[in-house]
């Protein structure tokens, strides 16, 4: 009888700890097998043969279908370039260049995973063919509540949000690891208090 209590305790604690660490690692699988470029995170190997079990489990738990290597690569950002959480109360400027690609799309999602409700007169998602580029191929996109000249991504609401930058038909997926591809910076501007 004196032995049963410790055994039960050990079993319960083991199950709990094992489950909790498994859950945590799956949620934070971006530490394993991901590439991080500034605030952007992508899983270049989510589709290859050498996928690690954490990335597979994460895809299953979230119900996502990864982009194949020939299709492209999906980058996610939860913070600005200085590491501060993205907030809909703030205005941001995205500037720089993406890896060479036929096409890219930039989408914003709120904390519940829905697309951000666009501010009146604008859209909360944009694609490369609709973005005005500088002659050197770089671009600048303003995320703001009110219309801006140039490229404007209209955000509204409040709370945290994330950005998803999907790059289609890019050589990056076949040469990942050789040199970090260029990714745009996310610069925070004014915040509404």
């Amino acid at each position, binding site marked *: 009888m004196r032995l049963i209590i410790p055994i039960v305790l050990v079993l319960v604690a083991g*199950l709990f700890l094992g489950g909790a660490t498994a859950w945590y690692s799956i949620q934070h699988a971006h530490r394993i097998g991901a590439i991080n470029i500034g605030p952007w995170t992508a899983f270049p190997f989510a589709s290859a043969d050498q996928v690690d079990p954490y990335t597979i*489990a994460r895809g299953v738990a979230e*119900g996502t279908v990864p982009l194949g290597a020939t299709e492209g690569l999906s980058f996610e950002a939860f913070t600005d370039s200085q590491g501060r959480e993205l907030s809909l109360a703030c205005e941001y400027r995205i500037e720089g260049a993406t890896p060479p690609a036929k096409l890219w799309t930039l989408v914003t999602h709120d904390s519940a995973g829905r697309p951000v409700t666009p501010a009146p007169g604008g859209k909360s998602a944009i694609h490369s063919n609709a973005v005005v580029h500088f002659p050197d191929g770089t671009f600048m996109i303003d995320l703001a509540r009110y219309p801006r000249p140039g490229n404007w991504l209209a955000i509204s609401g409040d709370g945290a949000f994330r950005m998803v930058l999907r790059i289609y038909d890019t050589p990056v997926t076949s040469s990942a690891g050789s040199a970090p591809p260029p990714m745009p910076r996310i610069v925070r501007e004014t915040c509404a208090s």
Partner: protein
Amino acid sequence: MILRILYFTLCTIVIAGLVHIAVVLLIPSYGSRDAYARLSRDFPMLDFKAMPEGGSQSPIADMDPFFAYGVCRFDITAEGVRIAAPRIDTFWSATIVNEDGTVVYSLNNRTAIETRLDLLLLSPVQVLRLREAQPPEIENSIVVESDMNEGFVVLRVLRPNESWRKRAREHIEGVKCTAYTPVAAPAQQAPEIPEATEAPSQ
């Protein structure tokens, strides 16, 4: 007493480690929220259908709003599958995914033959039969060999603005996803076969 506590702590850590590994490895087989499990509810086998759009209704969690999606579920254990689409002059890409959610093959309009989606997905045995039969399809289809069983194909068609919405949808409705068994081309190819088989035997 200290030894006893140490002993039980060690046991806890070992059990925790085993549970951790088991959970991570078993999620792909037993997960019920993954894309394939959700697709299985709404999509019959060998029926290419457009994906419902928006919100939590969609079986695939991470859809790009600039793309129209079409999906077909299949099982190539007994018979291969052929996925063929008409030509469209916008960017598209397609992925073959197995039950576990791992990408088996992917292509886009630039890597396809004549920018048209025409795929034969076959098991290794079926590929041997295909080589034997030499049907006319192999001229312009991409042949993918895989030892998977069940899976699905996702076609993503770019619709850069609202005016493309209808066209992308019509394109997806025109995609065929059918069971495929290689059949030798009739008539003019028939006389060639004896010639080929005679050559090695002297």
